[in-house]
């Protein structure tokens, strides 16, 4: 039994490390705002993260440095869905703090009067009814209930 769990752990770590080694990092990506004129610091991480006095509006936010959205969202709904979708929370809420279009991208640090709003295909908006659902509990019970979803054990093995 222990051997089995060890096998799973090794598999997971192998995946994670190989991902880091071959993966692209944020530098140079669309999320690298270090060269944008509105980011006078020239830093990459600062638009989202800070080392001290981080924002805790969203529980367990990872050293958050960006204004959080206060918008009211319309969640995804469907006659065939078994998941219960509510207001976005956790990391999804942090993503939407730029991608819902209500908070300026440059509202980080103490800035609240930014002017850089997301447009185009990156703009999700506050109407999440045309987007894949987020912020719902995805557990074995849901997988069983739905019948067309992997449960967590299967999912781990699939990695």
């Amino acid at each position, binding site marked *: *039994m222990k051997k*089995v769990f060890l096998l799973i752990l090794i598999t997971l770590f192998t995946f994670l490390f190989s991902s880091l080694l071959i993966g692209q990092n944020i530098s140079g990506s669309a999320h690298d705002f270090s060269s944008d004129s509105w980011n006078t610091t020239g830093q990459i991480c600062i638009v989202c993260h800070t080392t001290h006095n981080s924002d805790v509006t969203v529980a367990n936010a990872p050293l958050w440095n960006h204004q959080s959205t206060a918008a009211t969202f319309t969640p*995804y*709904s*469907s*006659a*065939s869905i078994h998941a219960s979708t509510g207001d976005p929370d956790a990391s999804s809420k942090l993503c939407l703090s730029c991608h819902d279009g209500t908070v300026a991208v440059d509202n980080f640090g103490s800035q609240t009067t930014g002017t850089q709003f997301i447009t185009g*295909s990156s703009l*999700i908006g506050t109407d999440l*009814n*045309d*987007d*894949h659902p987020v912020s719902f509990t995805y557990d074995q019970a849901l997988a069983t209930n739905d019948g*067309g979803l*992997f449960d967590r*054990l*299967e999912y781990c*093995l*699939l990695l």
Partner: protein
Amino acid sequence: MRIKILIVFILANIVSAQSIVNSVHNLSVSGSGTVIATSEDEICIFCHTPHNSSPRQPLWNRSDPALNYTLYISSTAQAVPGQPSGSSILCLSCHDGTIALGNVLSLPSPISFTGGITTMPLGDANLSQDLSDDHPISFIYNSTLAGQDGELVDPLTLTGPVLLENEQLQCTSCHDAHSDVNGNFLVLTNQYSNLCVTCHDKTYWLSTSHRNSTATWNGTLPDPWFHTTFNTVAENGCENCHDPHSAADHERTMNYYDEENNCVNCHNGNVATQDVQTDILKPYAHNVYGYDHVHDPDENNLVNLRHVECQDCHNPHAARNSTATAPNANGYLEEVKGIDTNGNTVDPIQYEFELCYRCHADSPDKPGSPTIRQIGQDNVRLEFDVLNPSFHPIEGAGTNSNVPSLISPLNESSIIYCTDCHASDGAGSSAGPHGSFNPHILKYNYETADYTPESYLAYELCYQCHDRNTIINENGNSFQQDVHFKHIVEEDAPCNSCHDPHGINSGQVTTSDHTHLINFDTNIVFSVSGNLQFIDDGIFHGTCYLRCHFRGHNPRSY
């Protein structure tokens, strides 16, 4: 150890997943079908997008097709299909063949496919914009409809896997685009018509041979089951005759356009034991090949426009292999409509003759009588009336209590079928009046021409029931000698010259002249001094006024 087994099981489950990945709905470059993208490796993208979907559910990534479809229509359907709606539109955004498979909302240019494929290639998966040859969709299926139709289950009992969408039947009621475990992405296997009978509750279906027969195909073309993988009649069930998509005959989605081909491609000796097709192709037949789409299952019991199809006499949803005693209809004639002895409609028939009366009684377009007689009558319902002075015992026992020629077990109280005389000829042929080398679809030879030398074969039909030796015994009583032997053997007169084999309607006679089926063929028997008459003088005695073979009886008694 147990965990190991569990993991092996789970892995195997994933690898052989009955998911979209291994189905032809995987249009990505990793797909196993013939219609796949050249390089796109996302599977879901052809239908779904995580953002900015339209329609929003189910995160749809394709444009809607134009709603100008030709809809299904049928004289026997109570459902009213509208232009496709709900999920059916989504399916048709590929399957009507009008929109390129690679046109997705989330990409600025279409995904390219191997072989230069753009829209759905022609074939089974391309339904076209003509939906009149497909099972109807996008109609309200509620308890009211089930009540009106009478042969549909109440949809309130549908708890899956067949489900409706807002009370409407849609493509998704039968198909699950994500799972091909049952073939054709069906939500339930249609082996033994399991899927069809979820909704269709055809009267008598449970007992019909078309549901229960284990007969197999002998491999001689044509393949009667060209659109299934099943191997017996029972397994094919509804699909023995019906094709739910792109059906050759649109109305009622039949496998073949010509009605009879839906039947004869099994009833030709290749599946069913009896070769009905060979009988129907004989020179005298209920020629189902002679009519196309004149018959309608919704037509009146009384046939106004002359035609014949297998379905006029047989109900393929009910027919079964079972015998009966005259005059009761047997299982092959289960649940068919007819006309009763009083000319009223009956549905279903109880007696076999009620089926024949649909066309051969009061029908305005019925075939005429082949023999010109002193009392003419084409309406066989009137000829067989039990109140007639004489008739062959079809509706009830005959009037003559002295018929010594009858061969046991027949006797004076016996009742026979129309099909005892009118039936396919030859040993081993199919029962019933399908076809014969004998005129009038007679089961045996029956000569009607004057000056026919008597032989067993000449009147083979009559001699099946009436013993030849008794009829023409030259050493018998005076009746046998003077009447039958003299006329049939010595004068070569056919039985038909004096006897009317059906009967003489009581409404056309005022005397007892027409007992013993006496109704002279006026092309053979003529009047004498203006008088053509038979007078019944009691048992084995009579008097005739007639002229025949250049001799006059004016009168002559026996």
